[in-house]
């Protein structure tokens, strides 16, 4: 296959970026999208040009490092996959492919296609945990959890923190990401003692980081590589309002 790539190049956070066009010849349909970029980069290095920088690590769809906006869609055209799991057989010979970084105020560009997603970490610092120390915990089977609840909590917990939900949203809202963690803990008995404090702390930090508001368009759910459900947002809203209206004094 022969392809034409239009890639966003930006030296660093303080420099203006621009699109640069590169040919990608000798592309095999069995290559992953990132392997295709590897091949382009090898050519760039050989020519003395700077390779295209992008975040990537596990290349099996679980670490959440990769983060490319491909032809206008986070992680490209295939549903329920991260960029690293996208294979070139999803494209046709002669295609033009536009590759951009995540576009969100809260995710500033570091270089080329790599962005700073530490805002997600800071939201987790604010309350994404159960406050227990190592040791002195009950036997694992002392905490009974119905299978349906455990499965639902697991579904929320599969979020890989890639930021596609933010990149997909016209407001760059982080509601899907935050609500997935809030939901996991709200569903499980272990999360109950801090349930209402947690949701307030995490939402407050999310707002501080400059993410936009949620208008329920559902683009986040449609683009999420792990198919995190929009119902997490509903659950988080319910807990947040409960905390604000009823529980605030109790849990202060």
């Amino acid at each position, binding site marked *: 296959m022969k392809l034409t790539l239009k890639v966003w190049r930006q030296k660093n956070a303080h420099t203006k970026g621009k699109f640069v066009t590169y040919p990608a010849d000798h592309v095999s349909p*069995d290559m992953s999208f990132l392997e295709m970029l590897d091949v382009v980069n090898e050519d760039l290095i050989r020519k003395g040009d*700077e390779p295209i920088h992008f975040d990537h690590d596990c290349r099996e769809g*679980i670490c959440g*490092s990769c983060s490319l906006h491909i032809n206008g869609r986070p992680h490209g055209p295939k549903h329920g*996959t991260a960029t690293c799991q996208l294979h070139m057989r999803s494209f046709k010979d002669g295609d033009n492919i536009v590759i951009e970084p995540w576009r969100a105020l809260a995710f500033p560009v570091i270089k080329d296609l790599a962005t700073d997603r530490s805002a997600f970490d800071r939201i987790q610092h604010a309350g994404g945990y159960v406050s227990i120390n*190592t040791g002195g915990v009950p036997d*694992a089977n002392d905490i009974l959890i119905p299978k349906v609840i455990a499965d639902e909590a697991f579904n929320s917990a599969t979020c890989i923190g890639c930021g596609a939900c933010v990149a997909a949203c016209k407001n760059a809202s982080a509601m899907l990401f935050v609500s997935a963690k809030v939901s996991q803990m709200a569903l499980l008995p*272990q999360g109950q003692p801090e349930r209402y404090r947690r949701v307030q702390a995490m939402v407050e930090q999310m707002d501080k980081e400059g993410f936009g508001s949620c208008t329920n368009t559902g683009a986040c759910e449609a683009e999420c590589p792990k198919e995190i459900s929009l119902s997490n947002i509903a659950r988080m809203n319910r807990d947040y309002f409960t905390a604000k209206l009823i529980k605030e004094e109790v849990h202060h």
Partner: protein
Amino acid sequence: MTLDAKIPEGPLAEKWSKHKFNLKLVNPANKRKYTVIVVGTGLAGASAAASLAELGYNVKAFCFQDSPRRAHSIAAQGGINAAKNYQNDGDSIQRLFYDTIKGGDYRSREGNVYRLAEVSVDIIDQCVAQGVPFAREYGGLLDNRSFGGAQVSRTFYARGQTGQQLLLGAYSALNRQIHAGKVTMYNRHEMMDVVTIDGHAKGIVTRDLVTGKIESHAGHAVLLCTGGYGNVFYLSTNAMGCNVTAAWKAHKRGAYFANPCFTQIHPTCIPVTGDHQSKLTLMSESLRNDGRVWVPKTKELAAKLRKGEIKPASLKEEDRDYFLERKYPSFGNLVPRDVASRNAKEMVDEGRGVGGSGIAVFLDFADAIDRLGEDNVRAKYGNLFDMYQQITDEDPYKQPMRIYPAVHYTMGGLWVDYNLMTTVPGLYALGEANFSDHGANRLGASALMQGLADGYFVIPYTLGDYLATIGPKAVNTDHPAFAETEREVKDRLKQLLSLKGTKTVNEYHRELGLIMWEYCGMARNEEGLTKAKDLIRALRKDFWENAFVSGINEEFNQNLEKAGRVADFLELGELMVDDALNRKESCGGHLRLESQTEEGEAKRDDEKYSYVAAWEYKADNQPETLHKEKLVFENVKLSQRSYK
């Protein structure tokens, strides 16, 4: 220097309790006067950093990823072992200990392995309390599955994403301490060297991967939780960033490297498709619970399959060879990883491999689907089947998977004593970065167990003993050793950036990988290893003359990062070959073709090789010195491993 493993005296079951009592404690008010440096934030690093901060120590934690949650522990699929005996099927601490020692082919320490089995039960409790959503039965209790090398069901799991859920648990504990101000987290920072003062580790030098800034950090102790070195093979199931640099720099500062040739080749990976391949993807070993491994009985049938003249499903039962079930009737498809891998290679070498390249065997779920129904198979392995389909464009519900072994884990690593301290006082190694618990072969679902055991339940006890001994005197980066180490780091970066030859760093890495896979992979012999040594030396020399490294230091420069890591792999590769040459016996994943039983199984030589090979670095391009730590077995009887 004689190696003292510091294994406590006394009966096996009492060693750890006694040892804990004998260790010195740091009083609570003094803990805040100490700073501990933790490098790496996978299961071992995140759990250690969080647990130490909870105790009151100040922790500085470092990772090269953009977030600690992305460390490669996240990719572990199948599960974590623990001797809970929730299934009432005869499990016990003693049995987990025995299975692990035997699975490791009697090349690990009894004391360490027993402790691992002992604390395994606490790990599950800890993770559940954090909110890790393990699989449950309808009654609300935890579910278990079985795994290779064991005849009991002791593996706890969270669908096919157990590593992710455990790491997010440890990450959440770490986040709580970051929020509390007890952990200072440095993302996108790579450790470039260890700083030693009077022989003790007192800090590290790092590079900020975004700005290129070289920084010194001082601490009372340094914990390396930096994972394994499987990427020396270029293609492996490791993440792209996994590297040996931190461990290798520590090695050059005096930490012995133990059993470097002990590499695990995992049997169930998706086969290579072409030269562009950048990494390999593992399919969880749990698939072997229900999948049956086979190849055609004859070369002729295999050739027809490869050409697409016949379909796998059209092959009659009598034309199939379920080789693991045939050769190992009692363990069948659940033999340990080294045995399963070696047998797959044998089939391919005989010309009975399948798939376009012929370098694969089948893993077939047709029987399981008949027995359990497609929905139940989907519920158990759905995400793994999806992953397989995404990569290969084949539907494993309709046709058998093609699998082939790939480098997955390294049992070797920095030598540590019972306290997890390396031969450099104050420098510790945890998790895959150390060598201690898996001998010559690791059992499935034991890596997660060991990483978390070291971080949550071992280091919080053993570190205090050292810290109490050295006292809480303040440490800072004023000592000239820091400036000196920084200068060396900068010189090396300059040297790398001055390389303006014709070959890319990646090309060197790929070449090294091919050498390692060919001569130091699943089967090794004297002739091949000797050849590999020369090839690696020549490649290393060529690298420092003809490589091309782009860009400058003072920027985000992924090519420079990779160059430094490949340069270290080029040194490590030679040590692995030396170690494989030295160990003339076969054991676990290390198969010396010269040492096989009549049936072609790995044949140990306990008289000559029942020791840990710990290598001491001397100087660049100088042979390393071998030190032997004799392995003493008082509780298990050494026998030829049999899974028949």
